[in-house]
């Protein structure tokens, strides 16, 4: 029965492992740090599996024994016991050796990870908020400092330094296919170096419980070739696009007259709130509400009309708008590429 169970298990595991290519998976590394870690995970897993199988064999031996149940419990075979003692001591010694080996291995892996960002050219400050990420691109020229939210564009193949901090509770920044996680702690600054080998979109998520909407605090790292990245940066520095249609124009007016303006910033307009994500180029992002919804007209409308239904407990309040007002605001925001 036990054997049957283990066969079933092996099959199940094999099935599961087929699906391990994902855009948020530690087993699908896309950068040097995650590759090093994936290798480490597989090595540890393999070694542990071997140890576990050996222990199970040792456990199965008495079950296979043909000998009878011992009749007199206190009559012991001194020779057998001293042989066993030698086996046990050897096993303990072996355990110690393996553990020393693993300790050294993880020490050196840690050094490898620490070396990744030593020549980082780009510094990005990531601030955790309940429940979104503020992303600020640092630059020596103040006019080139760029603030955006939830999506982090980086140049592919170059190490990038992230400065992690928080304004409210502890969050944890984790993009598994690029690197391990690191906490964002109020009053502290942590440094995480990441590097994506190839262009691509890598999903991450807050990994430290941070309250009601911890589950919906996603982030994306978008690695692009250097030229495309630079172009993106320059685009993002531009003020918001002028509304093209009458509806969008009405939307802008509404945005500035209604509660939206109290929290959000749209560059080039009087809207200058800093406590919620910067919406200057909101339509250029792939998702809404920190990875909760894909960017689309319908989802924008759903999010604005009923934020507490989409993300209950989030700090975006329900604003009473009628259908026309909602359409107008959505039309305006949709144009903010």
């Amino acid at each position, binding site marked *: 029965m036990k054997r049957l169970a283990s066969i079933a298990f092996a099959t199940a595991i094999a099935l599961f492992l087929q699906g391990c290519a994902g855009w948020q998976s530690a087993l699908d590394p896309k950068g040097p740090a995650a590759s090093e870690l994936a290798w480490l995970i597989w090595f540890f897993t393999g070694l542990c599996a071997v140890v576990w199988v050996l222990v199970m064999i040792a456990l199965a031996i008495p079950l296979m024994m043909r000998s009878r149940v011992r009749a007199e419990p206190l009559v012991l075979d001194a020779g057998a016991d001293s042989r066993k003692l030698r086996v046990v001591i050897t096993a303990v010694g072996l355990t110690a050796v393996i553990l020393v080996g693993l300790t050294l291995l993880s020490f050196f892996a840690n050094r490898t990870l620490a070396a990744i960002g030593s020549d980082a050219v780009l510094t990005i400050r990531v601030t955790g908020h309940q429940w979104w990420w503020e992303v600020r691109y640092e630059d020596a020229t103040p006019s080139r400092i760029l603030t955006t939210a939830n999506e982090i564009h980086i140049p592919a193949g170059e190490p990038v330094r992230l400065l992690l901090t928080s304004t409210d509770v502890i969050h944890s920044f984790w993009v598994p296919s690029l690197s391990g996680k690191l906490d964002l702690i109020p009053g502290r600054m942590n440094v995480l170096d990441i590097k994506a080998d190839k262009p691509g979109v890598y999903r991450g998520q807050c990994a430290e419980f941070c309250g009601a909407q911890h589950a919906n605090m996603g982030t994306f790292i978008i690695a692009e070739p250097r030229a495309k990245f630079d172009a993106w940066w320059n685009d993002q520095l531009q003020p918001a696009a002028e509304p093209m249609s009458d509806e969008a124009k009405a939307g802008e007016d509404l945005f500035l007259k209604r*509660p939206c303006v*109290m929290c959000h910033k749209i560059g080039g307009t009087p809207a200058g709130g800093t406590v919620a994500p910067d919406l200057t180029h909101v339509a250029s992002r792939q998702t809404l509400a920190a990875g909760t919804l894909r960017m689309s007209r319908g989802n924008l409308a759903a999010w604005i009309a009923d934020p*507490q*239904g989409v993300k*209950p407990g989030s700090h975006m309040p*329900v604003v*009473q*708008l*009628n259908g026309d*007002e909602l359409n107008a605001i959505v039309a305006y925001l949709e144009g903010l590429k």
Partner: protein
Amino acid sequence: MRPIAAMLLLAILALAACQREERDTRPQSALGSGEQPTPVTTLEPGGQRPSPTDNKAASFEANAFHLSEGKRLFGWFNCSGCHANGGGGMGPALMDEKWIYGSSMESIHATIRDGRPNGMPSFRDKIPDDQIWELAAFVRSLSGNAPSSAAPSRNDDMMAHPSENRMPDAATLGKSP
């Protein structure tokens, strides 16, 4: 007799706790019309408004979640810019026992919504109604007018004044602990 008393006690506790601990993030329907009652006149003899038509005040004023949301919004909307953490500056102090327009939830709500002479702007269109209620509840707690079991505690910040749950109880003027 004893079980009955115990159950009664539990029921009272339950009511108190429900009111305090409820976390209704969507008190008003998301599909509202966007219309809000407009006052007929801005003139208010005696500074008192007529008694409110909804029971929002009661559901907001002793609720810990709404109070703490109010505290967050107080900071976010820069109320301190004039009221300086409740101590008063350009605007009147909020943590003393003086109320120019009355200390009721409804009055404070009206003050924030419609504004007052001499500088208090109207936030009618700038803050959704529920959030105004939250702010009103918090403003009351600044002067010890909210139950201390529901009032917010200190901020993770430089604290310029005692936290709201440690203000002397306004009803008893802080006479009893």
